[in-house]
């Protein structure tokens, strides 16, 4: 029996993203107002807050304004207010402006921002308010007392690649809390277990996801207008793959360029990293990057399903917030304000639950009621059928979105709810096509994956069990190779999965130390045999400004 350290808190948030940080700050203040006191802690698997935070991002300041009534927009760590806005349809070599920017794509009054900067800023406020953030510790197991969650176990350190204890072995700690709030972000590993065990997706649409891939480019002085915003559809994805590109101007002449690719494409050969490289061959994008230098790379999945894909939010002793619960507006390409608001609404419920010392599912269900009478619902209900329309290609999706605008979100103008199918089920067998025959990595504008990963500053303790668990590795070399042609080599934006020759045959090599924690493999693997679990705490990318 391993002896573990135990720590008792009142409230534990898992994952120091915008949802948890805003929730913790709001909770602390509510408790002060009502004369209560509670120990609040936040677990974060990254070596510091912000190192695993990645988003576009254009931020709607609504939740920040509500959280910080005493502050002005100028006080928030934004890059710039959106000053110029474009929406283009890209052909192979031209860009065609949309005749008008639909209200849902209008970013007037919003701000270009770096999520990493925002979470760091929020974490400083947490520290000043005595909220403990434990960085470098990943939650790896939920601790139950019968059917009630009473805490989280953190990962062991110092286990070698064969599973044996190294001299510096340090067992994970058990952190007990009255309520565990999962704000793990997209496709959280504890969240996945929780949803599965308690059937929290019953009656919901399957969650559908997209993968965002981005780079930061340092440009010559005076060439980037901060607050410049452009979005595009069309090239390089075409009409059958959901997604589009973004180009935002940050401070200090930095371009923030990215591509979002829906993880519900049919061709198993689609490679989001390569699509992104193709984007940079477009003359318009190329002209923007002229004379610049790439300084950072990152990738992260995002839940696109919307209103009907939000799971049940509470169980006995636990709640789901932020991306873990799918709070993202796919049409507005925004989730940070919804994530923060969900954390704050959860905090309101927690404050009452603490006062009444009642942590049952029914009591914590108050959070879902609050969410349903908040602006989160107003906003998400209007776009509730947005992503589903794109099952019919780009023009189908746009038509559906357009009609949705006129009918307060009805699908095709009359259906209250369109269903969705999980993205990995849409991949078609025997269809693997190489879309990248002409793609040449020139090392100046276009980079192979390994070079891009270098720019994500990713590292992991090398001597540990790979944190990508492939449950039936035989499938990779038999069924998957035959049916889908090993799409893991393509969908992973960090070259983690590699089929290498092994005598006469092939074997799967898992380069886990490249992993940027985007969770795409866990989502997109057609047989659902990959389980992404947290590596030893502190491992992963060290993003600064993504």
């Amino acid at each position: 029996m391993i002896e573990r350290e135990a720590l008792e808190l009142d409230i534990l948030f898992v994952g120091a993203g915008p949802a948890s940080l805003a929730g913790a700050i709001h909770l602390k203040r509510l408790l002060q107002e009502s004369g209560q006191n509670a120990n609040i802690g936040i677990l974060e698997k990254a070596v510091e807050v912000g190192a695993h935070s990645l988003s576009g991002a254009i931020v709607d300041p609504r939740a920040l304004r509500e959280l910080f009534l005493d502050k002005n927009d100028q006080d928030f760590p934004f890059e710039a207010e959106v000053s110029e806005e474009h929406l283009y349809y890209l052909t192979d070599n031209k860009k065609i402006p949309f005749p008008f920017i639909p209200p849902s794509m209008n970013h007037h009054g919003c701000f270009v921002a770096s999520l990493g900067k925002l979470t760091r800023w929020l974490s400083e406020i947490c520290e000043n308010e005595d909220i403990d953030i434990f960085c470098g510790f990943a939650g790896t197991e939920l601790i139950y007392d019968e059917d009630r969650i009473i805490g989280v176990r953190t990962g062991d350190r110092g286990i070698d690649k064969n599973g044996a204890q190294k001299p510096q072995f340090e067992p994970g700690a058990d952190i007990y809390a009255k309520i565990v709030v999962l704000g793990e972000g997209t496709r959280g590993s504890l969240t996945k277990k929780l949803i599965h065990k308690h059937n929290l997706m019953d009656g919901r649409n399957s969650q559908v996801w997209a993968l965002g891939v981005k780079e930061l480019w340092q440009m010559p002085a005076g060439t980037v207008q901060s607050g410049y915003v452009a979005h595009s559809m069309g090239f390089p994805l075409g009409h059958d793959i959901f997604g589009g590109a973004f180009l935002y101007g940050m401070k200090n002449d930095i371009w923030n360029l990215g591509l979002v690719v829906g993880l519900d494409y049919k061709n198993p050969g689609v490679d989001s990293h390569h699509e992104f490289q193709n984007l940079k061959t477009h003359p318009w994008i190329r002209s923007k990057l002229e004379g610049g230098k790439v300084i950072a790379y990152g990738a992260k999945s995002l839940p696109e399903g919307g209103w009907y894909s939000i799971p049940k939010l509470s169980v006995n002793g636990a709640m789901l917030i932020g991306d873990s619960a799918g709070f993202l507006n796919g049409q507005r390409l925004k989730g940070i304000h919804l994530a923060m608001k969900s954390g704050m609404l959860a905090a309101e419920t927690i404050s009452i639950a603490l006062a009444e010392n009642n942590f049952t599912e029914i009591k914590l269900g108050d959070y879902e009621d609050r969410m349903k009478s908040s602006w989160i619902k107003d906003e998400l209900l209007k776009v509730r059928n947005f992503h589903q329309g794109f099952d019919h290609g780009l023009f189908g999706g746009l038509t559906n979105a357009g009609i949705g605008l006129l009918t307060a979100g009805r699908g095709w103008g009359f259906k209250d709810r369109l269903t969705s199918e999980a993205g990995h089920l849409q991949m078609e067998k025997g269809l693997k096509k190489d879309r990248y025959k002409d793609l040449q990595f020139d090392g100046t504008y276009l980079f192979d994956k390994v070079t891009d990963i270098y720019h994500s500053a990713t590292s992991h303790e090398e001597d540990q069990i790979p944190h990508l668990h492939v449950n039936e590795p035989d499938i990779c070399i038999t069924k998957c190779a035959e049916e889908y042609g090993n799409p893991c080599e393509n969908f992973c934006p960090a070259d983690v999965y590699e089929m290498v020759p092994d005598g006469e045959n092939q074997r799967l090599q898992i380069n886990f130390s490249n992993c940027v924690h985007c969770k795409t493999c866990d989502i997109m693997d057609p047989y659902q045999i990959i389980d992404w679990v947290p590596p030893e705490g502190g491992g992963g990318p060290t993003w600064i400004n993504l």
Partner: protein
Amino acid sequence: MDILVVLEDNHGSLHRMSREAIAGAQQLGESITALAIGQHASLLADKLSGVDLAEVLTVSHELVSSYNADGYAEVVRQIIEAESPQLIIAGHTYQTRDYMPRVSAKCDIPFIPDVISAEDGSYVKLVLNSKLNATVSASSDTVILSFQSAAYSDEDLVPGSCASRPFEVNLDTAMVRSETEEPFQEDAGDVDLESAELIISIGRGIEKEENIPMVFDLANALGAEISASRPVVDSGWMESFRQVGSSGQTVAPKLYFSLGISGAIQHVVGMKGSKNILSINKDPDAPIFEISDYAVVGDLLEIIPKLIEALQTEKNS
């Protein structure tokens, strides 16, 4: 005394990085004193008789006859106290990493390790996987530095003359809490890539584990150390301490002979400081060629056996 250079004894000869440290010190100041500690102290002093130094101090106390961190740290502390140098310099070796932080703590002097260049009180270090250079300066007038391997070249040593002077230190057993036994070589620890002058490094182009012994034959013929890029280590064909790159070692030999290495940036940051780079690769577009001084496009499986044969013939003739 302006600068004190602490020497490292390498079985009775002077560690290459100590010579480099002196070369670096000569570029930084006028009056340089070297310090030799241990049973070979006077031997080391003799080896420096042709180098332009103010003097060489020798310490041959029985408690530091062979290396131990407590003893070395105390010796260096006493010399700093007696001679008040402004800069204390050593090569960035394993030994330096062991005792120098103790000196820094004992004397409350800042230690800036693994420096690649120094000028007028600012010191340059590689940071963030060697992606950036950081210029560091110290808040105090006195600073301890260690120089990265090959930051300076021992070929630039300024010749001249110097005398040696024994220095009496006060050491007692209470100060030296560890006892040093006979040095021994463990198989793994045998490989000191960081101070190797000639390294043969192999990559994915080696294709099969069966081809590895051939590379060891070549290394024996040339007297080289062997390192590898990541895929070779990942395949289990080579021990992980031989890996060069961002998740392995940083090396800077006089010649880095790369065989079948493509030159991914993660590998390159670990060896780009090498004096000369000679590369063999089948792919003429391999990025390794961009940083190579000598490039051979060809199949290493054909070339290596011929190379070994040629070396043998030359040896025999």
